[in-house]
């Protein structure tokens, strides 16, 4: 806990070191929401609905932003490869804590994470009032719970691929390909054929981090994916990838 608090303090100080940076980070999250909202507003062009209601796509956009905020917890995984290439991963191996947890803690972007979460929550509140949606605390908790579960599942898949860099050093092409599937998050899963829906639910689980939480929040009658088997499998793949790759890790010397 003490280490975590220290990481948070450092993260905040890193942002405050530059004047106006805190506003810029806020503006960045805001522009991201505006661009998504504008996209949907243009496509609706005055129509009430097209299979998915307007409130659904706006809430989906906010939940996608919320999931972006939550995913910042795993920010350290993104540049693990460059760390390995520079030989800088060695220093985590000396320390009496899990190298992975230390890396995630050290790179935790607290301020952007909080700002994205706050903007997303404000956006959900705004859409709720604008469209007169009745939200209940139970549905909200279910939505957040599923979002967390989906985020962990997605990061386990992402981690299983990323950890291969400890062995091969260069994995960015494959990792970026997975990363680019993130675009699917902002579209209703219902518009895709069943094969793509399956892919986006269990293989690259973008549907789990935005679409299904939105369904839960709005209390829609749609079957949820069964993760009882998929979740342990993803965890095992992630764990196996990490354990076998760390054994093959050869320092580059930096």
């Amino acid at each position, binding site marked *: 806990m003490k280490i975590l608090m220290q990481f948070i303090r450092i993260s905040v100080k890193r942002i405050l070191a530059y004047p106006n940076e805190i506003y810029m980070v806020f503006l960045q999250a805001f522009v991201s929401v505006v661009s998504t909202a504008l996209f949907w507003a243009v*496509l609706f062009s005055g129509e009430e609905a097209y299979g998915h209601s307007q409130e659904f796509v706006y809430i989906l956009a906010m939940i996608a932003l919320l999931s972006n905020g939550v995913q910042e917890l795993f920010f350290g995984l993104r540049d693990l490869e460059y760390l390995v290439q520079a030989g800088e991963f060695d220093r985590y191996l000396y320390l009496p804590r899990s190298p992975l947890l230390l890396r995630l803690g050290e790179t935790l972007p607290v301020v952007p994470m909080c700002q994205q979460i706050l903007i997303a929550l404000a956006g959900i509140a705004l859409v709720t009032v604008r469209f007169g949606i009745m939200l209940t605390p139970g549905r909200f908790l279910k939505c957040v719970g599923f979002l967390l579960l989906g985020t962990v599942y997605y990061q386990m898949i992402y981690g299983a691929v990323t950890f291969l860099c400890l062995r091969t050093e260069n994995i960015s092409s494959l990792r970026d390909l997975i990363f680019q599937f993130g675009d699917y998050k902002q579209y209703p899963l219902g518009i895709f054929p069943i094969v793509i829906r399956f892919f986006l639910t269990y293989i690259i689980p973008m549907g789990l981090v935005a679409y299904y939480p939105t369904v839960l929040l709005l209390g829609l009658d749609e079957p949820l994916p069964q993760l009882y088997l998929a979740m342990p499998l993803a965890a095992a793949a992630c764990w196996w990838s990490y354990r076998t790759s760390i054994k093959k890790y050869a320092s580059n010397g930096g």
Partner: protein
Amino acid sequence: MKICRISIFIEIRKMKQYIINFFTSLMYVPISLLIYYFLYRSILESGVKLAADVSELMAYYTVVLFIRAAVSHAMRAVYDVFTDINDGDLDLWIVCPVSYPFVRFFRAMGSVIVTVPTGILLLVAAMCFWSQPDPVGVLLLLVSTFLGFTVLYAMMFLLGLLTFWIKTVLTIRDIFWGILSIFSGELIPLQLLPEKLRFFAWNPLASVYYMPARVLEGEWGYLWVQLAYVVLLGGAALLVWRVGLRKYESQGG
């Protein structure tokens, strides 16, 4: 001229570093097209009226996605200028008998001199599936893409130069990406905007994706607009460079 040639040559030799990324990003083109196809099919099937049908939209996004893969390296300009100023590497550039903005531009040009024609050739190959590409249109698309790249580079260079005043510009760059995706036509074709907002099709960011796509469709007049923006933004970049240089304090590297 010799320096420009050498700058381009250096980047071509460094091409190995990012050519794999370029081809990987091309792999993503069909995935993106699938998303757009299902999205727009779903929208149009539900009775919403847009200013284009699915095949026109797919042709548009194919052009945009190939151009994006080919010119994305220009985005690096902000980071290059930012690190040169903050790490003190600019010292070396200032004392050399070369123009820093031009050398940086030609190095960036070198990084896309292979990817842009390759991307356009692949695009033409893809287009053959649904239409007979017009050779003149393809040639002008190549010119338009290079003009769009120059406009994008000039804007990225300008953002990088802000480091002279505010020390960190990477978040501003990320904000700019969001703005670029809206106003360049990358996210949504600008002809789909409501009638009142169609004037956005003339904004400088539209030079990057929207205008090249229109040039391929035979609206060659956009080339003059792109050329005007190249002159305007190139001039602005040189002016800001001169003013900013007076603010420069070496960090020692």
